[in-house]
C-alpha cells in the first residue's frame, strides 16, 4: 500500500496543531525574552476548560474556545504582572525556576481538583472522517487544523497591522528604541504574555477532543514545544511555523516508513533539531546573536 497520500495529510494536520501549540511560546520569548516553563500547563488548563464546558453544559469545545482564550489572556496578563514582571531583570535561571515552579503548582492544583483520571470531550464530529479513496481525513483533526490556521493567521495579521502587534514587534526588535518611541513596554510585556497564554489555551481546547486530558499532559508538549521553537529560531514566529511543520513531517515520515517508527518520534524531534543546529546554529529563521 502506498502511504504517501495519508502520510501527507497526517503530517499537515499534525503540523497545524504543533504550530498553535508553540506560537505562544515563540511570542513570549520573542517579545519578552522569557522562557515560559508553564506554557504546557496553560495548554492543559485550556483542555480542561473545554472538557468541563462540554461535560457539564454540553458546549462544543470549538464554541467555548473564544471564551477560554479571553479567560486565558486575562489570567496570563495578571500572572505576568504579579509574578513574572518582578523577575524580568533577574538572571535567566530565576525566571526559569519561577515559571517551572508555577507550572508544577498548576499541575498539582489540577490533580487535586480533578484527580489524575483521564478525560476527553467527544463532540459529534469526534469520530467522523472524510474518505478520499484510501485516504482518511479525521474531521476532528481537520477542524483542529482549521481553527489553528485561523488563529495563526489572525495573529500574523495582528502582528503586521495591529497597533499592539506592531508595538510587540518593535519591542522584539529593540526594547530601548521602542521605549523611546513611547511604547509602554511593561504593559506590552504583560499583554503579549496574555496573548501567548490565550494561544496555549486554544491549543489545549483543540487537544481535548483528540486525545486524553490529564494534569500531566502539559510537560510532554512543553518539551516538544521547546524543540520546535529552537529549531525554528528562538523568538521567530515564522520560524515556529516552519519548525512545527518540519518536525511534523519528519515524525510522520519516520512513523510510516521506519519499523516501529512511532516509538522513535521523540528521537526524531531532537535528531532534526540537532542536525538543523549543526547547519544553522540559530535555527531555521533565527538571527545570529548580536556581537
Amino acid at each position: 500500500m502506498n502511504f504517501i497520500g495519508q502520510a501527507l495529510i497526517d503530517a499537515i494536520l499534525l503540523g497545524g496543531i504543533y504550530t498553535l501549540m508553540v506560537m505562544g511560546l515563540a511570542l513570549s520569548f520573542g517579545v519578552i525574552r522569557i522562557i515560559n516553563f508553564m506554557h504546557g500547563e496553560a495548554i492543559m488548563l485550556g483542555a480542561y476548560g473545554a472538557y468541563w464546558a462540554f461535560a457539564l453544559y454540553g458546549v462544543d469545545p470549538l464554541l467555548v474556545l473564544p471564551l477560554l482564550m479571553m479567560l486565558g489572556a486575562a489570567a496570563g496578563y495578571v500572572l505576568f504582572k504579579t509574578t513574572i514582571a518582578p523577575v524580568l531583570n533577574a538572571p535567566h535561571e530565576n525566571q526559569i525556576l519561577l515559571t517551572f515552579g508555577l507550572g508544577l503548582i498548576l499541575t498539582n492544583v489540577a490533580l487535586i481538583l480533578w484527580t489524575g483520571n483521564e478525560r476527553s470531550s467527544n463532540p459529534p464530529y469526534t469520530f467522523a472522517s472524510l474518505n478520499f479513496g484510501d485516504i482518511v481525513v479525521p474531521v476532528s483533526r481537520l477542524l483542529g487544523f482549521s481553527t489553528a490556521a485561523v488563529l495563526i493567521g489572525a495573529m500574523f495579521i495582528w502582528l503586521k497591522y495591529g497597533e499592539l502587534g506592531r508595538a510587540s514587534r518593535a519591542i522584539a526588535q529593540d526594547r530601548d528604541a521602542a521605549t523611546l518611541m513611547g511604547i509602554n513596554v511593561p504593559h506590552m510585556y504583560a499583554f503579549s504574555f496574555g496573548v501567548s497564554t490565550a494561544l496555549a489555551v486554544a491549543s489545549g481546547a483543540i487537544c481535548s477532543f483528540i486525545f486524553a486530558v490529564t494534569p500531566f499532559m502539559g510537560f510532554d508538549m512543553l518539551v516538544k514545544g521547546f524543540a520546535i521553537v529552537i529549531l525554528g529560531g528562538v523568538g521567530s514566529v515564522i520560524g515556529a511555523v516552519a519548525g512545527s511543520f518540519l518536525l511534523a513531517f519528519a515524525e510522520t515520515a519516520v512513523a510510516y516508513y521506519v519499523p516501529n517508527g512511532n516509538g522513535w518520534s521523540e528521537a526524531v524531534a531532537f535528531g532534526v533539531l540537532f542536525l538543523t543546529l549543526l547547519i544553522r546554529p540559530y535555527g531555521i529563521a533565527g538571527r545570529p546573536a548580536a556581537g
Partner: protein
Amino acid sequence: MTIALRVAAAFVLSLCSLAQAQEPIKIGVVLELSGRFSAFGHTCETGVKFASEVWGDTVAGRKIEFLYNDDQSDAAATVATLTHLISQDKINYLMGPLSSPIAAAAIGPWRQGKPIWFVPGGSTTTIEKEVGPEPMFFHTLPYAYHYYKTITEALKYQLDTTKKKVAILYVDDNYGRTHQPLAHQYFTQAGFEIVAEEVVRANSPDLNPVLTKIAQTKPDILLGIGQTTDSVTLAKQLYTRNLNIPYLIGPGSTQLREWQDSAGEAQEGWIGIAYYVPGVVNWPANKDYPRVLPSTAEWEKMFEARFKYEPNYHNLVCYINIMQLLIAIEKVGDDKEKVAAEIAKMDLMTPMGSGKFAPTGQGTLNQSFKDMMVFQRHNGKNVLLFPAEVATGKIAVAPR
C-alpha cells in the same frame, strides 16, 4: 544481686513490655497519591480507609495506626519514603505501592526490613523474579501473564480461532514493554498468527501512521497494550479511522470507568479483563467474619452508602488485604513471622471470592485473586464472555 534489685529489674522489664504492648500496631500504606498513577493510588487508599472504619481502631488489644505516605508515582520518592518507614518507624506491615515501576522501585528498601508486604497491583514479572519467593511478600492481583492466558482462553471459548491473525500495538513504557513479550508468547502458543507488532511512544498525539500500517496486515484481532491515557487515544483514533478489525482487546484499561467515559462511543466492542465487576457475582459472606467480610452485594451496598459511588477493584482488593492482615494479627498477635504464616495458610471467603494464597508456579509463593473475567462492552455495559460459569453473552464484532 539482692532481692530488691531483682524485684526492681523485673518491675522495669514488665514496664517495658507493657509500654510496648501499648504501642500502636503500625501499618505502612505507601500509595501513588499524586503523579501519574494517582488514580490507582486514591482508589486503594479509599479501600484501606474503608477497611479501617469497618474493622475499628484496635487489633489484638492494641491501637492500629495507618501511616499513609505518598510515593508521588516516583521511584526516588518511593525509596526515600519506604526507607524511612522501615528504618525509623520500624513497620512490620506494608500495603503498596501499586503500579509496576513504583512497586519495583520499592524492592530495594523493602529488603532492609522485609515487613509483610501486600502488592495489589504490580503486574510486571520483574517483581515476581525479585521477590516472588519471599514468604513475606503477598501479591494480590494478577501478573501480566495471567492476563494473556485468560484472554486467549476466552477467545478460544468464544471463537473459532483457527488461523486468526493478531496485531499487537504496545506503548513504549514499562507497562507495554513488560506485557508485549508475554502477549506474543501466549497468543503464539494458543495458535494465533502474529501479523504485526508496533510500538508507539507514550502520550503520542497521532496514532494514524501506526493504525494505517496495522490495517494493511488485515488482522482479525487488535491487542492494544498501554496505560489508560494511551488507551483512550487509541480507542478514539481507531474508531475514527473506521478500520475493519473485528475484535479489539484492551487488557488493562477497558474495565476502568475513566477509559469508558473518555472513549465515549468508541468503547463499543472493546474486550477487556476484569478482576471484579460490580453487581455481577455475589460471593457469600464469610461465615467466621461476616461483619468485616460480608457478601459481595452487602459490601457493595456498604461502600456505595459510605462513598456515594460504585466501587472498583482497587477499592475492594485493598479493603480485603487489610482485613486479611488484621484477622491474622488478631489471631496470632503482632509477630511478623507468625502473621505471615497465618495469612499464607488462611482460606477466607471474601467479597471478591476466595482469598486463598497459593504459588503461581512461576516464582511467587503467595498469590491470590489471579482469576479474571473477560468482558466486552455492549451498549455501554459489560457483557461477560468468560469463564463459562459467569458468561452472560456471546462475543460480537466491534461496530464500525
